[in-house]
């Protein structure tokens, strides 16, 4: 299969390893990964903050880019539940709000062939054992949009269970939100960090060395908390664990070195 990779803006800019892992994984499974050069972002940040008029051209750009890619590809995949959620549930809605029925229709068509990573692997490619190896204790956070918008169910966990030598530990209260919520993390920072604290406590209680998820944005938030509290627990995207093999193992992320000069208490860095 020829599969267009929507890397997502966050992975492109901050987590290139996640986009790389997605490509590696697809190629290892015998597929051809195509990365449309003109891609940018799904527009989720604009839309969820209420900037629909600003988001509309971003949506249009996404639709045009991947519509063109789909001319020569069978499907689009993104390593993010929330970005695929936006493509599937918001793009046509935004176009409709601005009476652009043609765009709405095209958006629906692109959305119909866009999959979150675990969906693509399990539903489209029909694999759960992707031939991965990862020999460390991992806990998996299913993320809200994957769970409730896309309804990916236990697909990610099934994929992880098939990873050789993995020690998969169940996360208590897994389905409750980590408190990221895009601009919520800034606009309602106190509530967001209260939610983060509970998520970090849950992750820590598992004794896992790595917290994984299918969305880099949630992981940036949770990882930021894990690092701030010096838990020594790192984060890895689902794609990174699935791309890991005995020959090319994905290293466990190293905890940040302690601060040299100005030690500060959690949350006190104002």
């Amino acid at each position, binding site marked *: 299969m020829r599969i267009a990779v929507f890397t997502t803006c966050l992975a492109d800019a901050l987590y290139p390893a996640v*986009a790389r892992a997605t490509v590696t994984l697809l190629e290892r499974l015998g597929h051809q990964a195509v*990365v449309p050069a003109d891609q940018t972002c799904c527009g989720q940040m604009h839309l969820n*903050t209420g900037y629909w008029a600003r988001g509309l051209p971003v949506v249009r750009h996404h639709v045009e880019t991947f519509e063109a890619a789909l001319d020569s590809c069978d499907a689009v995949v993104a390593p993010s539940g929330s970005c695929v959620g936006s493509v599937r549930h918001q793009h046509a809605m935004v176009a409709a709000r601005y009476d652009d029925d043609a765009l709405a229709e095209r958006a629906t068509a692109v959305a119909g062939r866009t999959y979150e990573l675990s969906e693509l692997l399990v539903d489209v490619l029909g694999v759960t054992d992707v031939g991965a190896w990862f020999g460390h204790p991992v806990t998996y956070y299913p993320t809200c949009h994957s769970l409730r918008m896309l309804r990916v169910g236990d697909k990610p966990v099934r994929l992880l269970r098939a990873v050789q030598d993995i020690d998969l530990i169940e996360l208590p209260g897994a389905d409750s939100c980590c408190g990221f919520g895009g*601009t919520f993390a800034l*606009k309602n920072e106190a509530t967001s960090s209260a939610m983060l604290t509970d998520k970090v406590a849950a992750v820590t209680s598992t004794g896992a060395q790595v917290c994984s998820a299918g969305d880099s944005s949630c992981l940036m938030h949770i990882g930021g908390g894990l690092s701030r509290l010096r838990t020594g627990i790192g984060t890895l995207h689902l794609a990174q664990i699935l791309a890991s093999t005995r020959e090319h193992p994905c290293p466990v992320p190293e905890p940040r070195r302690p601060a040299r000069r100005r030690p500060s208490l959690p949350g006190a860095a104002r």
Partner: protein
Amino acid sequence: MTRPMTRTVDLGMPTATGFLRGEQKFPAAAADRLTDAQLRRNLAHATGTIRTKRLRAVAELDDWEELRLAGSAIKTDAMARLPELLEQLEATVTARGGVVHWARDGVEANRIITDLIRATGADEVVKVKSMATQEIGLNEHLETEGIRAIETDLAELIVQLGNDRPSHILVPAIHRNRTEIRDIFRTAMPGAPADLGDEPRELAMAARSYLRERFLTARVAVSGANFAAADTGTLAVVESEGNGRMCLTLPRTLITVMGIEKVLPSFTDLEVFLQLLPRSSTAERMNPYTSLWTGVTPGDGPQEFHLVLLDNGRTRVLADEVGRAALHCIRCSACLNVCPVYERVGGHAYGSVYPGPIGAILSPQLTGITGPDDPNASLPYASTLCGACFDACPVRIDIPSILVELRADAVEAGHRPLPGGQDVAMAAAAWAMTDGRRWGRLIALGRLLSWRRTGFRRLPWPASIWTRHRDLPPLPARTFRQQWRDRLRRTGSGS
């Protein structure tokens, strides 16, 4: 634009009055509540318990999803022909000996109710738990008119005696634990034993003996309504304690205040809602007390029945094609119980008597938003859009989508949701994100910061809002698109 900006244009529709708006914006009010460790423990315990129970109650029915669809369809239909159904309800209630009153807002409703009570000569009324009367501040109004309103729902009584405000639509005293309740009873409940303990049974017995006397002497009761069937004129109240039943049957005069959205086309529609509501609210298969009454029955129950139909902003909500789904709410409170934000900050942070996810979409629509400084303008942002509310809602109100729509309305009306500079940032981002090359150049700027291999603990404003609570990972030396370009050059293949 497909939709008119109903929230900023005055269409001459009734505006809401009453307790629908707080004084503080949500982020500040929430931050205050978060420091109350007792409150957080009480809430986490209470919502955690009811969540598990609800899931169990819902899992028992294999047609739960069909029931939800039916509930949603009936409500959608009712809202589509609300005027017609209300007129039908007026006719059926009147035919059975009731009197129907129409109130444009809370002020008008309070006046109507006061006059009705005055006409009976009573200066004390017993009350059935009702959100509508909380919304319009009826008790407070009656007090200024010299009429004592006594709440008979146990939790509502706790709130009233504690001079407090409800923080949950079903369990208004959810923010209190039993020791706090014992203290409130000891100080404020006439006749409470001085050595009252904090065992639930003891507390309930004390309330019972206090209320018994009120039931037997009251001449007037005021209630809300969960449902009204337009075809028969039947009103319905569901409850757990039986105190509502006392109020609905003992006094001579019954005054029911009902939001106009509570009307259902047909009596048989109750089949759906009497399954959806108890399982979603108290996680029971059936609520212990379901009271149905139709007008007046000579020699049995109240001999005088008044129905006050309350608008108070509801037609304003109805005018919004998307937002009107908020009127489908049957006040089960499931969305509050599953909400991770509500669970941590509690109901008071929302300002309005309607807290939690439903409050975040209902309150600002009922009141309208006066401008960016309106505390209710902050409510649509009081959510991570995690979707737990939509999943739990028995009538399938897509609360996350409505929240996002309300945010879009606010931005279009010129209100700026985030601290200054956001407009510029959003415009710049949109500019970069509509062109792959521009975007690539912009994010490659990150290389300037990528010398630092350890990530970031402190960044200047506005990034400081992030780094106050979380570290930021080190920036990659090369963006993915740069790496991909390198690879294409190396391998000589293109795509």
